[in-house]
């Protein structure tokens, strides 16, 4: 394709018409926001996965009056333990007296023992793939009437919905940022067209094609957008690392107590992979928007 001048030249005077200050700064701000939204989206996704795949598969089984005999003969706790042990696709464990005391300590203090309370037996049941929590609850009620089954999945389903809502909101924020970026580039390009109208009409009259003129604009706009996006990304990374360090204790991959936080591993690998995509996406938005804006404007010329 013929060009107006050698690569890197500025035949249309776009260096002055498309300022290298305002557009990059606006794009930097948008990429900064997009990076935060993207991080929020991935964090919400991780939490949802953690909730769905971990704690949500737990059942808590409480057996009141554990040491009372059942109609069939064995003690109620033993009957429940036997049933849990015989049920396929679950893993059950009875909490020890010390663990129960630890759970109750916030409410009863350290003197629960002397109160001589008849504490229930508590089993922690992990559901494996294909487990049937409803059927298990029915069987437990038969084996030891009055046994309570707390199905954590109901609560975690709600948390999962919350996480998905957060993901959707973050995705919407990324989309809105992309739309605003498109609008900003379009406005900047139109301002550049207005500022260089005379020059464009001259080269157009000399035989420049729409492709040549749009190419000049899109190269300039893409360069400005990409530099602004890189600046915004460089600003966002320290902020993301800071947030990740602050929230590390709540993360599924929380470092051990006392261990020094690993800054680079503080962010999920997926986020590290997607962050470089932001400037490239911004540049692509800049190129496409500039091309479309200029070609539409040129279509008004004879």
């Amino acid at each position: 394709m013929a060009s107006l001048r050698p690569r890197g030249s500025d035949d249309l005077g776009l260096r002055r018409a498309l300022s290298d200050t305002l557009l990059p700064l606006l794009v930097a701000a948008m990429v900064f926001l997009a990076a935060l939204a993207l991080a929020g989206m991935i964090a919400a996704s991780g939490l949802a996965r953690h909730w769905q795949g971990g704690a949500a598969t737990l059942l808590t089984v409480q057996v009141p009056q554990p040491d009372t005999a059942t109609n069939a003969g064995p003690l109620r706790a033993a009957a429940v333990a036997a049933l849990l042990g015989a049920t396929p696709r679950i893993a059950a464990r009875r909490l020890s007296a010390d663990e129960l005391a630890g759970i109750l300590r916030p409410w009863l203090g350290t003197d629960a023992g002397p109160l001589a309370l008849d504490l229930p037996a508590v089993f922690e049941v992990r559901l494996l793939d294909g487990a049937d929590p409803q059927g298990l609850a029915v069987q437990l009620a038969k084996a030891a009437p009055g046994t309570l089954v707390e199905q954590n999945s109901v609560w975690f389903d709600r948390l999962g919905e919350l996480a998905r809502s957060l993901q959707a909101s973050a995705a919407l924020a990324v989309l809105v940022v992309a739309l605003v970026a498109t609008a900003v580039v379009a406005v900047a390009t139109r301002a550049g067209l207005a500022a260089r109208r005379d020059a464009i009409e001259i080269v157009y009259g000399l035989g420049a094609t729409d492709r040549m003129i749009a190419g000049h604009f899109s190269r300039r706009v893409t360069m400005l957008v990409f530099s602004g996006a890189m600046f915004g990304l460089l600003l966002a990374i320290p902020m993301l690392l800071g947030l990740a360090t602050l929230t590390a204790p709540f993360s599924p991959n929380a470092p051990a107590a006392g261990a020094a936080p690993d800054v680079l591993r503080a962010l999920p690998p997926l986020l590290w992979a997607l962050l470089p995509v932001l400037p490239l996406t911004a540049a692509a938005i800049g190129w496409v928007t500039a091309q479309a804006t200029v070609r539409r404007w040129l279509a008004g010329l004879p």
Partner: protein
Amino acid sequence: MVRLDGVGLRYGTGPYVLQDLNFDLAPGSFRWLLGASGAGKTSLLRLLTLAVRPTTGQLSLLGVHVETARRRDLPQLRRQIGTVFQDFRLLAHLSAFDNVALPLRLAGRPEGQLRADVAEMLRWVGLARRAEAHPAELSGGEQQRVAIARAVISRPALLLADEPTGNLDDVQAVRLMQLLAELNRLGTTIVVATHNESLVRRHPARALHLQDGKLREHMEHA
């Protein structure tokens, strides 16, 4: 080469500035374009430079029917038309060299092959030492010479000039007319709009007389 059949032109919803123009220009012909201010000379030149399309009638340029041609076909046609504008229309941020080189670059001439031609053209218009000067650093006459060099550097098939000698001294005006005559001899069709009657008298040729947007008649000026 150039053929107008019943061509009329109006800008938007305004009155017709050109009406019912009918004439032919054969390849290698020369025409003065004459008429008082407001007669429609600039509008006719705008039509012939493809800056506007006719509102009515049929305009054929270099074998292309302009009124029905697709937009994407016009750049190639424009590259075969050289134009010297009354207001020069130079790119202010480019040097004289780069302004003159523009048509060659648009035509895809490799950079290494155009430098000698541009330098030669600048030498011919007496601006060899001003090649790197920008229009703001040039006098009106120098700018006009740059505009002339830009118009003729690609050896256009059709050359249109609007008051090309308006800012030139007599020596430069004579040299310009010699250049136009030479291009004409090489087959370039030339239309020159001017108010300069002495210039027309010194270079007798057929003329198109416009009056109130209408063509009076072809006249021979001797």
